[in-house]
């Protein structure tokens, strides 16, 4: 049996990615701006609930407050990565 052709595999993967993205675009186009904005609210509440449930399950705890503390720490780490080098506490002297 011949080994898989890497170029063909990459092309198939790209076609699949484009197809998934295309469906997302077309779905969003069918929505009104208000419906899309409503989705942001709904998705956000849902994702936080899932993060909380996941943290409690992973830590094996039933205390909801503890679960939110874990979520908070994880989000803080994510923000550190996302904002790295983007913010400083003071303006440069030349701009003050």
């Amino acid at each position, binding site marked *: 049996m011949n080994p898989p052709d890497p170029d063909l595999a990459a092309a198939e993967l790209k076609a699949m990615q484009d197809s998934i993205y295309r469906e997302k675009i077309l779905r969003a186009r069918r929505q009104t701006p208000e419906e899309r904005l409503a989705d942001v609210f709904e998705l956000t509440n849902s994702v936080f609930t899932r993060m909380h449930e996941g943290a409690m399950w992973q830590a094996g705890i039933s205390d909801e407050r503890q679960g939110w503390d874990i979520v908070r720490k994880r989000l803080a780490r994510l923000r550190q990565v996302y904002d790295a080098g983007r913010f*400083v506490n003071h303006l440069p002297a030349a701009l003050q």
Partner: protein
Amino acid sequence: MTIEQLATAVLDACEKEGVHHMLTGAFAHGLYGIPRSTKDVDVVLSVASGNPIERVVRRLEGVVQFEQQVKFDTLTWGKRLVGESTGMPPFKIALFELFDDPFVQSQFQRRRRMFSTQIQRETWLPTPEDVVVQKLRWGRSKDLDDARDVLAVQGPETLDMPYIEKWCALHGTVPRLLEALAGIPPLD
């Protein structure tokens, strides 16, 4: 607390203080692009009424715990203060002070009013063109995806592309714009 309740509290604080404002971040992107979840409520505040951040922070006492110190972004040197909702979940809120950057000024002047059924309030949001320019300017991976989403969902043919191209040329982000446009798959 839900993200709707937090957004409502922030917008009410702005209204009561008479601070002109504009929702940005994922809410602006979601309005024109592919909706996604967010971790924070981002709001730009006009400085026309004086000390907007202090006044909005005071109004949100008990609802949001803010950091002690404002920070400055290293791209435009705009001022930002971050807080976290006191109730659970721990949503973040970021207050940005409007400043004299020509694009930021233009974006704020062009903002549009819309009614959100979720929060039962009118709010102000940037135009799709300004969301694209801002996201390309920030240039983090998620920002670039967001810019491409807005271009794809709105369609370049419906957008004021000369306006977008003008700001991208000034910001040196034309290559990012071209890459975003090239990333839109055929839709027919």
